[in-house]
């Protein structure tokens, strides 16, 4: 059973108190947080912390993901590696450098397209007729297998995403609309909530990769030059339809999130603090939901699925055994 994440929204100070974490909020409240019982720490407020607090996180292998003003993702403090393996990193870079890169990238994007298509199938007939887009995505998934360069893989993926996002407008209850994905900053409510949950999916992948000896900067679909951990971006592509998009649809259509949960700034639109709390609460619940896994023959949580996907990739890199990128089967 994976451990839960912990989110801190308050402004204040994070410190070490003997063997545990202590949070003193500006509002004068003090809370103790047993460090050994959390998977990752998310800091959403303005938090002061020192090296002693980081040392404690380090000892327990807990990553801290830091969000800044209006919950823009700032970065992560990652604990010193628990798993160090030169052998793994050498093989990972080798796989990046030879024709394994293309086949891994194809697997990742095929899974990503499969998971987008699976979302459309779920809403087909419920919120509109998506049969055309569903057929296009099936084509695009086949095309991925047929191309010979990473650039072509990315081009097909771009087309698939366009096909997919065009359907969002019809899936989402009015007045939410998403005709085009826009970020930095998001221009409307739908873009804002998709961006926020994509960010959460990304940090979930960062945490999962950190638990292995894989190097998060060496990805297979994305170029290593990008500013973020490219391997996390790769794995996040598989899980965005599962962890982010499906949740966006649910929150909006059940009216758990309404336009009142957003505020428009000068040139963009962002979730309010209470909106973010609602979204995160549901995101954490989703991570703990379980499905019966056919190969592991047990129920696994969505959070565990991210971890086992990374393990499967790692095994593929080290042994040549098949990489099972997670394609929704349930």
């Amino acid at each position, binding site marked *: 059973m994976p*451990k839960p994440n912990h989110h801190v929204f308050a402004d204040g100070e994070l410190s070490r108190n003997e063997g545990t974490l202590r949070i003193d909020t500006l509002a004068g409240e003090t809370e103790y947080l047993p460090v050994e019982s959390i998977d990752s720490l998310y800091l959403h407020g303005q938090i002061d912390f020192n090296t002693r607090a980081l040392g404690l996180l380090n000892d327990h292998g807990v990553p801290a993901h830091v969000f800044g003003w209006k919950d823009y993702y700032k970065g992560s403090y990652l604990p010193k590696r*628990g*798993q160090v*393996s030169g*052998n*793994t990193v050498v093989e990972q870079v080798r796989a990046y450098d030879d024709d394994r890169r293309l086949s891994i990238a194809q697997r990742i994007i095929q899974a990503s397209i499969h998971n987008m298509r699976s979302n459309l199938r779920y809403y087909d007939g419920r919120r509109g007729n998506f049969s055309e887009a569903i057929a296009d995505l099936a084509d695009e998934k086949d095309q991925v297998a047929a191309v010979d360069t990473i650039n072509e893989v990315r081009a097909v993926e771009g087309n698939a995403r366009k096909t997919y996002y065009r359907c969002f407008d019809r899936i989402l209850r009015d007045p939410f609309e998403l005709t085009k994905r826009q970020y930095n900053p998001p221009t409307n409510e739908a873009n804002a909530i998709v961006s926020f949950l994509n960010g959460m999916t990304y940090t979930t992948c960062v945490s999962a990769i950190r*638990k*292995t*000896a894989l190097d998060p900067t060496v990805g297979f679909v994305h170029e290593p030059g990008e500013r973020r951990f490219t391997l996390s971006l790769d794995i996040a592509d598989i899980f965005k339809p599962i962890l982010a998009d499906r949740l966006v649809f649910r929150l909006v259509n059940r009216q758990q999130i309404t336009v009142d949960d957003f505020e428009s700034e000068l040139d963009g639109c962002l979730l309010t603090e209470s909106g973010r709390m609602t979204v995160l609460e549901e995101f954490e619940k989703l991570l703990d939901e379980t499905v019966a896994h056919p*190969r*592991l*023959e*047990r129920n696994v949580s969505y959070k565990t699925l991210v*971890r*086992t*996907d990374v*393990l*499967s990739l*790692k*095994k593929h890199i*080290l*042994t*040549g*055994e098949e990489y*099972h990128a997670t394609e929704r089967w349930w």
Partner: protein
Amino acid sequence: MSTSVAEYVAAEREPAREPKTRITGLMVQYYHVCRRELWFMSRDIDIDRETTNIQRGTHVDETSYQGSRKSFQIDGRIQLDVLESGDIMEVKVSSAMEKPARMQLLFYLWYLREVHDIEKDGVLAYPTERRREQVELNTETTAQIEATVEGILDTVGAETPPALEKKSYCDSCLYQDICWM
């Protein structure tokens, strides 16, 4: 003794030379439990360290027979417990995996004899079951250990891991997720 085993012993006897494969007691155990597990472990493939089984084993080892044994490290790779009587002791949580545990202890005895010319007998102890078993090297057990050492060298030297195979104890294995994913 086969050529590969003889080469291994020769390499271990020469302090300046480093054998390609360092065999540990844990590897001997894994060889008799699951060769695929042994291969994964030899390639630094990580296990789920949050599991309680490891903690339980460590706890039983650390709290049993504290006064009557002394710990020794040999060559920086083998950790031995020596009883006051001079016997080598290995402590296990349960006798469920009896053969792997016995082979681990026999490997220590064999290593001491072949590499360091020290002859010892062993005691396998299950404190939670209040049970002990005497273990010694004879013609038969020596042959078993040498076959084990040869098998370990073969398994670890292979390019790819042994094929996937469902075993009754897969469910409690620390490599379960990586193995089946």
